[in-house]
């Protein structure tokens, strides 16, 4: 036996545990077209739902006539707010403490708002019937500008008339939602008054949309015989959907089963609860047969969950030498017609108060004013933790503007202000405790990798050549250093609709030494089935190949808060490790019994317990698993299972250093990305292949947002970017190859030291691309221009600076 035991290295490699670039177990299914997404679900007798939507951004609904629609063969029902009112389902609560119309109740507040829900035998008949529903509207003045909204007499939310307090404190005006303040205003203002230098800038982080390739949808099936409701859908948080569905419908929670099947990308779009979900449930209850609702791309871009739309004004104070002494930030946040932002309850502006970034800023103040306008509701974290992209964009632009003000190199300015390694855990001026970091090492590594000084020399030469008329391209060097805050979050300050933001894992070890683990999260492409098995493999000593990971079915998975804000690894990943440790603790007792020694006389060694000092005497986890089921062990229950609900003591703070080199054609406004270097530190690395893939994807979404992607409205509230013709999604042709790199600074409080990575590249990428564009024009007097930097806007910048003369 002994001779046949492989060496420790081989045994460890066989586990395919932490650090292994294990190939994904999901891929066999997906590459053969055997995924199971919500629109693939087909049930006997299933009906299709479709919405009548408002063509107006602000109007009174005078009347709705459904007769013609109901007369069309194949149409089963047409639901309006009037039909939902007796069930009290014409409005629903939002995640932000507001409420939202499920179907227009007297008026509409944004273009594309849901007015009536048609149920028919197939999607074509449903679409025909939508055309036949006659809605009479009376147009009202449209407010698309949040600053105007705060001045106008026009009341958008008549239902809130007279309410001077909202879910987040006092309201200053009938279109005002909340003011959220953090930090020390008085001291910050004093510092600004007495500073050597103050740089000030206003920037607009435009409205955009996560736009996953699969749109949102649901299939509801009410089984009237056994009283059970099953709901399949594009849910990033299925358990929360179950609880909300129960509270709204009055159906007891144990009679509701929510299933997230395969999800075709989420990026925040699939966190919220949408009228379509509610209507499919009601329609199934009414008709007694399953009802499917799947939105089309236009509906997706117009009505479900936008992101950003922050007007940010900053003041940053510094000494002549560039040491930052204070930061002031004010945000006017356009939340659209309803406040449906997806943030933890106590954070109406998400974690915007991470806006001091990676810098040691002694004092700061942040105030965010949320405002209603005639735009779609939403405000989700598009590939970032709650509002962190906005915060990081803000500070990384402020740093660049300060560098201009000080006539200093922006890389050096960052370096002299970074929080130092020995300052961690670091208490930020706006209330966070950064867990760990080593920013200087990462920054130096990044700048060296790209030969930063060489790039600056080349850029200076290019400017000279441009001035001599020898070239028409300019070179931009984009820098960004970001600190993310992910892994929401400690139950003491983070909840969604009252539900603490813990997460969970339940493990069952089978007698033959394989296992199934179920989690409260849900993958939308992140590869959980692959990586969570790796965490567990390293904890319990069974090969990842012998561990099935299951998520997304509320009847079987333990309660969890879902996947968004890079919380799966920090929270559910930790729960997985902790549940694995419980398995190991019981396994230790079984091993000791089998080896006829005291519990304390055995120790863990990769995949087995060995007798201390006698390594030839051991029991592998596989043997222990069998014993757990096949013999009576005095004092120990049969079986080998464990469950862990993990409440993280803190968030995790991944960070990174990015550099982008861009050549910009001044005459066409076309930017050519020559090089993009991304160094990420996400703590312990679980699967480097998947980490790299996440970084490529997040950077590409960053490129999109920085260089062209937006949800734009005209003055009448018409969505100008409602199809993929106008809404920019980069193709393989526009996207560069990225260079990835890393440092490893483990999280001190996470059981395996992991921090989460999926969103970092987006958070750090957007300012990096934007800074590259803006840096190209720095030598010609550019200070700040707003994103998105599409060709036309870049051309305009060049024109404004006189470069076409």
């Amino acid at each position, binding site marked *: 036996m002994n001779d046949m035991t492989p060496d420790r290295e081989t045994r460890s490699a066989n586990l395919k545990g932490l650090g292994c670039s294990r*190939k*994904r177990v*999901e*891929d*066999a*299914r*997906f*590459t*053969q*077209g*055997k*995924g199971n*997404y919500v*629109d*693939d679900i*087909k049930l006997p007798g299933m009906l299709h739902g479709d919405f009548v939507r408002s063509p107006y951004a602000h109007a009174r609904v005078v009347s709705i006539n459904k007769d013609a629609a109901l007369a069309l*063969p*194949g149409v089963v029902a047409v639901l309006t707010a009037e039909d939902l009112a007796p069930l009290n389902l014409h409005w629903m609560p939002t995640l932000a403490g507001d409420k939202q119309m499920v179907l227009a109740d007297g008026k509409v507040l944004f273009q594309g708002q849901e007015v009536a829900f048609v149920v028919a035998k*197939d*999607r*074509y*008949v449903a679409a025909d019937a939508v055309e036949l529903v006659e809605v009479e509207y009376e147009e009202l003045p449209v407010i698309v500008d949040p600053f105007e909204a705060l001045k106008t007499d026009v009341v958008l939310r008549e239902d809130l008339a007279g309410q001077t307090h909202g879910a987040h404190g006092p309201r200053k005006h009938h279109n005002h939602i909340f003011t959220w303040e953090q930090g020390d205003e008085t001291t910050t203002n004093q510092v600004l008054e007495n500073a050597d230098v103050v740089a000030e800038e206003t920037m607009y982080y435009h409205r955009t949309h996560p*736009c*996953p*390739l*699969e*749109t949102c949808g649901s299939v509801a099936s009410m089984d009237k015989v056994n009283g059970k409701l099953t709901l399949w859908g594009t849910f990033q948080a299925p358990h929360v959907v179950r609880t909300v569905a129960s509270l709204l419908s009055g159906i007891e929670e144990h009679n509701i089963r929510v299933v997230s099947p*395969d*999800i*075709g*990308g989420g*990026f925040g779009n699939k966190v919220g609860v949408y009228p379509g979900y509610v209507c499919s449930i009601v329609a199934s209850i009414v008709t007694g047969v399953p009802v499917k609702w799947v939105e*089309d*791309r236009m509906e997706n871009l117009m009505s479900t969950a936008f992101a950003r739309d922050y007007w940010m004004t900053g003041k940053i104070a510094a000494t002549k030498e560039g040491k930052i002494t204070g930061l002031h930030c004010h945000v006017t946040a356009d939340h659209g017609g309803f406040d449906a932002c997806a943030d933890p309850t106590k954070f109406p502006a998400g974690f915007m108060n991470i806006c001091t970034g990676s810098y040691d800023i002694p004092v700061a103040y942040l105030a965010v004013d949320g405002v209603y306008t005639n735009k779609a509701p939403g405000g989700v974290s598009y590939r970032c933790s709650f509002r962190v992209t906005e915060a990081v964009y803000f500070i990384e632009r402020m740093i660049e503007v300060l560098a201009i003000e000080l006539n200093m190199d922006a890389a050096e300015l960052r370096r002299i202000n970074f929080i130092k390694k020995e300052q961690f855990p670091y208490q930020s001026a706006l209330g966070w405790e950064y867990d760990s970091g080593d920013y200087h090492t990462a920054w130096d590594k990044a700048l060296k990798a790209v030969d930063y000084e060489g790039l600056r020399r080349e850029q200076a030469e290019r400017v000279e050549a441009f001035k001599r008329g020898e070239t028409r391209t300019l070179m931009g060097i984009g820098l960004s250093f970001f600190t993310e805050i992910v892994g929401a979050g400690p139950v003491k300050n983070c909840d969604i609709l009252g539900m603490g933001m813990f997460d969970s894992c339940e493990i069952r070890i089978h007698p033959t030494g394989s296992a199934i683990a179920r989690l409260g999260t849900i993958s*939308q*492409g*992140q*590869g959980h089935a692959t990586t969570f098995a790796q965490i567990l493999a390293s904890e319990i000593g069974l090969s990842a190949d012998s561990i099935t990971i299951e998520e997304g079915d509320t009847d079987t998975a333990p309660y969890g808060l879902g996947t968004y804000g890079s919380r799966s690894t920090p929270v559910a990943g930790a729960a997985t490790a902790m549940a694995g440790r419980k398995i190991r603790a019981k396994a230790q007792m079984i091993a000791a019994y089998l080896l006829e020694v005291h519990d304390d006389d055995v120790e863990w060694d990769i995949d087995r317990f060995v007798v201390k000092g006698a390594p030839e005497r051991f029991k592998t986890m596989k043997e222990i698993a069998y014993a757990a089921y096949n013999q009576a062990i005095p004092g120990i229950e049969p079986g080998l299972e464990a469950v862990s609900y993990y409440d993280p003591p803190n968030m995790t703070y991944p960070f990174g250093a990015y550099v982008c080199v861009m050549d910009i054609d001044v005459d066409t406004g076309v930017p050519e990305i020559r090089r993009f270097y991304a160094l990420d530190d996400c703590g312990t690395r679980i699967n480097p*292949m*998947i980490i*790299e*893939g*996440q*970084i*490529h*994807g*997040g*950077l*590409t*979404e960053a490129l999109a947002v920085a260089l062209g992607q937006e949800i734009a409205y005209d003055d009448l509230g018409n969505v100008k970017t409602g*199809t*993929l*013709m106008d809404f920019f*999604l980069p*193709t*393989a*042709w526009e*996207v560069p*190859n*990225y260079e990835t790199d890393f440092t490893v600074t483990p999280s001190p409080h996470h059981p395996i030291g992991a921090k989460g990575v999926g969103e970092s590249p987006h958070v750090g990428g957007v300012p990096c691309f934007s800074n590259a564009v803006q840096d190209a024009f720095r030598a010609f007097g550019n200070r700040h221009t707003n994103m998105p930097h599409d060709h036309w806007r870049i051309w305009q910048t060049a024109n404004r600076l006189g470069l076409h003369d």
Partner: protein
Amino acid sequence: MTQKMHIKLTVNGEDREFLAEPRELLIYALRETLNITGPHVGCETSHCGACTITLNGKSVKSCTMFVAQANGAEITTIEGLGSPDSLHVLQEAFKEHHGLQCGFCTPGMITRASKLLEENPTPTEEEVRFGMAGNICRCTGYQNIVKSILAAANELNASKEAAQ
């Protein structure tokens, strides 16, 4: 409602006959009538490529073609490219090089790539990027998709050489 038409298609080598309204889009006939759910719907406006199939030897976005227009056609979808026991070289390559994440674009991607490699068996990276520009992926950033396709091209060419 219009009169239904009698439609005949050869899909993945099998003859299929059914009735359909002429206005029905090919993608829905495939997905809902024939239960071929590999091709997906991402936009219905020819932009995303999730619905890509091969129709009479050409890459076609099945969301912008009426089933009536396809009558009599020979169609290959992702389901016809390989089998669980013998995956298509591209399916293997996408797995090997992490060419997918959520998997929603993958059937269209691989189907398009298979045609691309028939049209141009030795593409440069630039030609792959250009030839795949009709297929959008929101997850991968394309880097590993391009890598997968180039690796598959090498593989196909190596096995062709070995056969000669």
